């Protein structure tokens, strides 16, 4: 009796599983390109690589690309144990990671494929602040900072609460911001609202008049109706974040490179070469589509040269 009950369910279940088992096996196309490319690393750079993968796979249906987001550090760990072909990174490789790669005999090439303009944003109801100096930012964010109200920063500002939003301490964005603004990687006050998820930060800043937060340019760009980006004065006048200012270098110091590291042994495979070539050649279109800042002319030439030299 039990068998009669279970049998039809089991049959249906088996049928479902068998149907899905016919996973794409990647038959090669006319160009003869086939194979699997594995990328992992930063969750910031991930969307870039995924977009490139999607477009590339349309042209070469025999190639299968997978992209993971174990984080820049996690990506390097896998990369330097030979598990992945490409590593996405929102910061350059560090000394101990380099040592690990050397120890494992992994040689690699570093390619810059885009820029990011880290934006400092406030609520649109904030009509008093339009430009802050790097020094003012440092006063707000340095460890032990006691600034709780806007007036304390500048006497001409109103007496509104200063509510801070930012990424978690484990993110590359945090490392980069603290290094550039405060001077030391990891040096920051700890009483701010932190989140892994940039959308949450966006909502946070949108929801409070005196809010101030920092995150990647794409999140500001998609939410211009509720956010206002502050211009940064690092000594040469107030410059706001935009594609142009990030490219011509006037938006400093919050412009950061987004990198892809490729294993030299992977390079010997034609499909990896083709993908990397695609990534670099089309980097401008890719960055524009994924709302990052495209490479400048020099950066593009440098990347192309790196590729040729490999």
């Amino acid at each position, binding site marked *: 009796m039990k068998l009669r009950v279970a049998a039809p369910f089991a049959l249906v279940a088996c049928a479902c599983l068998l149907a899905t088992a016919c996973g794409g096996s990647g038959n090669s196309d006319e160009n003869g390109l086939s194979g699997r490319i594995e990328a992992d690393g*930063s*969750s910031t750079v991930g969307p870039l690589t995924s977009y490139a993968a999607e477009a590339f796979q349309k042209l070469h249906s025999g190639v299968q690309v997978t992209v993971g*987001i*174990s*984080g*820049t*550090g*996690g990506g*390097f*760990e896998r990369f330097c144990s030979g598990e992945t072909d490409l590593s996405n990174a*929102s*910061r350059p490789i*560090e000394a*101990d*990671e380099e040592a*690990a790669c050397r120890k494992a005999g992994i040689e690699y090439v570093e390619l810059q494929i885009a820029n990011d303009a880290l934006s400092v944003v406030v609520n649109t109801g904030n009509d008093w602040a339009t430009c802050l100096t790097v020094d003012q930012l440092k006063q707000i964010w340095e*460890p032990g900072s006691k600034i709780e109200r806007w007036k304390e920063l500048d006497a001409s500002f109103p007496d509104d609460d200063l509510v801070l939003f930012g990424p*978690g*301490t*484990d*993110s*590359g964005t*945090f*490392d980069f911001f*603290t290094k550039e603004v405060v001077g*030391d*990687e*990891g*040096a*920051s006050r*700890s*009483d*701010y*609202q*932190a*989140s*892994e*998820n940039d959308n*949450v930060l966006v*909502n*946070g800043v949108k*929801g*409070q008049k005196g809010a101030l937060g920092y995150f990647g340019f794409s999140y500001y760009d998609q939410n211009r109706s509720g956010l206002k980006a502050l211009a940064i004065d690092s000594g040469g006048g107030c410059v706001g974040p935009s594609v142009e200012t990030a490219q011509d270098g006037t938006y400093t110091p919050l412009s950061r490179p987004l990198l892809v590291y490729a294993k030299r042994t992977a390079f010997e495979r034609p499909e990896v070469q083709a993908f990397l070539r695609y990534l670099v050649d089309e980097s401008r279109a890719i960055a524009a589509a994924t709302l990052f800042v495209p490479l400048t002319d020099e950066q593009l030439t440098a990347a192309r040269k790196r590729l040729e030299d490999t």
Partner: protein
Amino acid sequence: MATREATAPRAPTLRASRRYVGETLIKAALGLCALVSILTTVGIVVALLEPALEFFREISVIDFLTGTNWAPLFEPAHFGVVPLLVGTLLVTVWACIVCIPFGLGSAIYLSEYARPGTRKVLKPALELLAGIPTVVFGYFALTFVTPLLRDIGLNVEIFNALSAGLVMGVMLIPTVASLSEDAMTAVPQNLRDGAYALGATRLQVATRTVVPAAVSGIVASFVLGISRAVGETMIVLIAAGQQPQLTFDPRVGIETMTAFIAATGAGDVPRGTIEYKTIFAVGITLFAITLVLNMFSIRLVRRFREVYE
């Protein structure tokens, strides 16, 4: 009980000897199943212990366990785990405030008051709540519950322990309710009939007869619920915040041990550094705490369990 361990009677069949061998084989097979959970624990301890020990070689255990400043990835770094402990405690307490009474209440209703037809519909509907991904609960806490709490006048921050705890409690209601309800349904009907025969009201039957008889299953459901509350990651990561501060005020953002492990584990911290090893130190602390708590709870259950025939 002697009868449970009764050896098979010497039935005069030709297959008697084979049956005995079969019995031993079956016992071995079942023992192997049990071994899986032992191996899991061994694996967890091994995976956590080595990096944790490396961590404790650099940071003293006393500083770690008694320090009240948790800032491992800041410059300068502090490694006092107490804020994380208190954060976990805060969220767990609020989760239990929701899931235990409401879970038990739902169970009593489903088992003693609802018609069998209603129960057949309501119980699976409640279990659907258990299937909603924790990511969804996290965003629900952040985008629905926190504004709601603000609307009713509680001045909560955008990330706070209260929203996360309440939503976690609701998520755990099906766990507590379903298991408790199974336990109560299994109480023999003659027990209820006896009580009714003596003139008890439904309330009295439910609370004085059925619940005590089912207390083993009910407490097991509580323990499972509390365990899951302590170990829950996603809801707290999204809604409770990543601000490790030592406070008992549920309206402010805190960080739980699990949120720290998840955020740092998936983040950009380079592997092999002391900052990365904090994950394992916190992990093994969590493991040790729940182990002690569970040993207590098992002893407690054993004392209160009643066996009805």
